[in-house]
């Protein structure tokens, strides 16, 4: 085990953890505002498509990034409208958006690229830094920003209050619905950022491969705290990296090795259940006084 290999492993792990970590940060904001968002997977599926499209169409990967973030925000907006304004059950809405996302991405792909299940190749990629996608490094300032925003700003305090006790926040004049919207749209935007660290060279149906759900497990494991969720994501990401790097050397059939991240997520959740505490009003519709 030499130093350059360790370095490679650390960097590769960061790159692989990044999509989960950004998505998990999105999940944290949404849930802290009291909205359960299981549509991270579906949103990421669409944003990774628009990332590729935007890059090709405007011949710049940065335009692709903007397209991805905007798409994520729009889809987040849909979830927000359905759950906050129409008060549909959060899990039902999340499931519906996941299904919608699958359909939408196939339709968009066929409209944009002529084929239903994969896009054209995108030659415009993010610059690399130390051999990996440089956007992965954005994780560090972004998580610091998230921690600061959530715990040291007026916005963060109010957001957390809305997820904890929206009735109380409402009586103090806090705009509950607006903050819920912001939390959910922010989670969509972060999904857009997450897809930037996935595979920017081509979109293939199913490429998100459950990372959106692993991100949810990371949110729970990280106790709904931005730093905690990112650390949990790193755990999952590095475990997956371990699998990839050592796959050929492991005497177990490859399919079982592929199961590893999913089994790990289950084991982690099974070990924790009941001990962590979601925001008290997570998943509950907010009904103002007159209703």
């Amino acid at each position, binding site marked *: 085990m030499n130093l350059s290999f360790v370095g490679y492993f650390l960097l590769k792990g960061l790159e692989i953890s990044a999509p989960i970590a950004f998505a998990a940060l999105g999940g944290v904001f949404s849930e802290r505002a009291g909205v359960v968002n299981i549509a991270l997977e579906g949103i990421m599926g669409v944003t990774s498509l628009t990332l590729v499209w935007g890059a090709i169409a405007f011949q710049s990967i940065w335009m692709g990034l903007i397209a991805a973030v905007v798409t994520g925000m729009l889809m987040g907006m849909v979830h927000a409208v359905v759950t906050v304004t129409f008060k549909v059950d959060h899990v039902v809405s999340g499931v519906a958006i996941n299904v919608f996302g699958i359909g939408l991405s196939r339709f968009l792909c066929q409209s944009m690229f002529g084929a239903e299940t994969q896009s054209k190749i995108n030659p415009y990629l993010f610059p690399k830094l130390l051999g990996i996608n440089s956007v992965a490094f954005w994780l560090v300032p972004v998580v610091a920003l998230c921690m600061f925003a959530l715990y*040291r700003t007026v916005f963060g*305090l109010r957001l957390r209050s809305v997820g904890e006790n929206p009735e*109380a926040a409402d009586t*103090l004049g806090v705009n509950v619905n607006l903050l819920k919207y912001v939390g959910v749209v922010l989670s969509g935007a972060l999904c857009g950022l997450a897809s930037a660290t996935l595979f920017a060279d081509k979109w293939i149906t199913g490429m998100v491969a459950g990372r959106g759900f692993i991100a949810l497990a990371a949110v729970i494991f990280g106790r709904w705290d931005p730093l905690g969720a990112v650390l949990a994501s790193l755990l999952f990401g590095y475990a997956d990296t371990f699998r990839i790097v050592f796959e050929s050397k492991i005497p177990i059939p490859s399919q079982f090795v592929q199961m590893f991240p999913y089994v790990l997520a289950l084991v982690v959740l099974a070990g924790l259940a009941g001990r962590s505490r979601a925001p008290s009003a997570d998943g509950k519709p907010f009904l103002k006084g007159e209703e």
Partner: protein
Amino acid sequence: MSDFLLEMRDITKHFPGVTANDRVSIDLRPGEVHALVGENGAGKTTLMKILYGLNRPDAGSIWVRGERISIRGPRDAIRRGIGMVHQHFMLLQPFTVLENIILGEESHTAGVLALAAQRKRIADLMRENRLVVDIDSRVEELSVGVQQRVEILKILFRGATILIFDEPTAVLTPQEVDELFRTLREITRQGKGIIFISHKLDEVLSIADRITVIRQGRVVQTMDRAGATKQRIAELMVGKPVLLEVDRPVVQRGSAVLAVRDLRVRTARNPSAVGGVSFDVHAGEIYGIAGVEGNGQSELVRAIAEGAEVESGEILLEGGNITRWPVRRRRDGGIAHIPEDRQKYGLLLAFSLAQNLALGRHHKPPFSTRLATINFRAIRESAREIIKRFDIRTPSEETPAHALSGGNQQKAVVARELSGGPKLLLASQPTRGVDIGATEFIHRQLMQARSEGKAVLLISADLDELIALSDRIGVMYKGKIIKEFTHDTAVREAVGLAMTGEASDVAV
């Protein structure tokens, strides 16, 4: 410039099917405590919600210090110096006292919290009003009385000069009530005005300068403290001479149906929620449990009804040990339970009234056949009979339960629990949130059950109800029964005193 701090003139508010406020007028002078009394559903809370901006009136006007104002939301109310301490605290439990107080009024630089100046202001406020709380402690660590202080600080912090208190003493021990009243007098000494909503007439007479009685959405009378009596107020509240005594036929008490032996219940929040309770309830007897909410009554009932979170001890039904029995077995064995929150625990709101009336016995004949299918016709027939017998107002037995009024929903729950022919009836807050007609009806049903030889365990936050109905009363304090009274010795003052923990020679 008017003499009055606040005037609400001809306030009218309609909800579907009911007029909550009908041309209500009320005013408040500086330095005054003005009590607003009325039955549940009379319209007091609606009126105050209008004042605080949580509801909008259909007609009428609000005047603060002679100036007409419009209140579109809590922010407007706060800006005008109106503050409300709610009956159910509006606090963020895991947040600190500081955070709870400043939420919505945070001082900041460019969005970043900068709270040093506000800390100082709060410290000053605490000193001025003699309300001391540790500003950095988390609210969930504080006792109920202290949490209320946080609520008061919240509104003082925002410069409230008109303070509304909605049933503030419901969750306090008598000692804490005294402290609260001291605080209220301190506040009025500074020239502020207080509106005090309560249906506890003793407290109202002790603190109020003026009293306004509201009944069915209208103001019945506004009177000065001088010359006001409990009897007079109660009659105005109800609209007819009030029988403060319930008809009590002499009933022969039978053997013990329920025996609780050294029961200990441990919950996640409280390791000694019930810390060693022993008592009996006999056939033909109503045993009341008195105590301020939060002293273990709910946990005790849940342990008897469901076996929830029992750590040790025994529960015996007619001599048989049922401590480990699952809920269904307890019900089949003759235990009926009127839960304290009918909507959360007692009724499937989306299901029909008929199905709700069969719930809990749906697995037995005649509702369930030998082939494990449901006999819906039997359910409907049984429901029709029950609806008639208990006079439940509903368009049909197929009406979904959520469409019924609160009083009829509670009647339905009571009817269901009694129609199974139980041996033991557990009644938790059976008349909470129920109009006077239904309350009287439920009281009669409970007395009827007693006459029929059933054992009734009655938990109620309404001391008058308990004293009127119970043969014996056990007072619960911090998870233990510290004193028992018989019907003859159960006097309001004595029971109230026991509720504070006095009379205990057990180390608490």
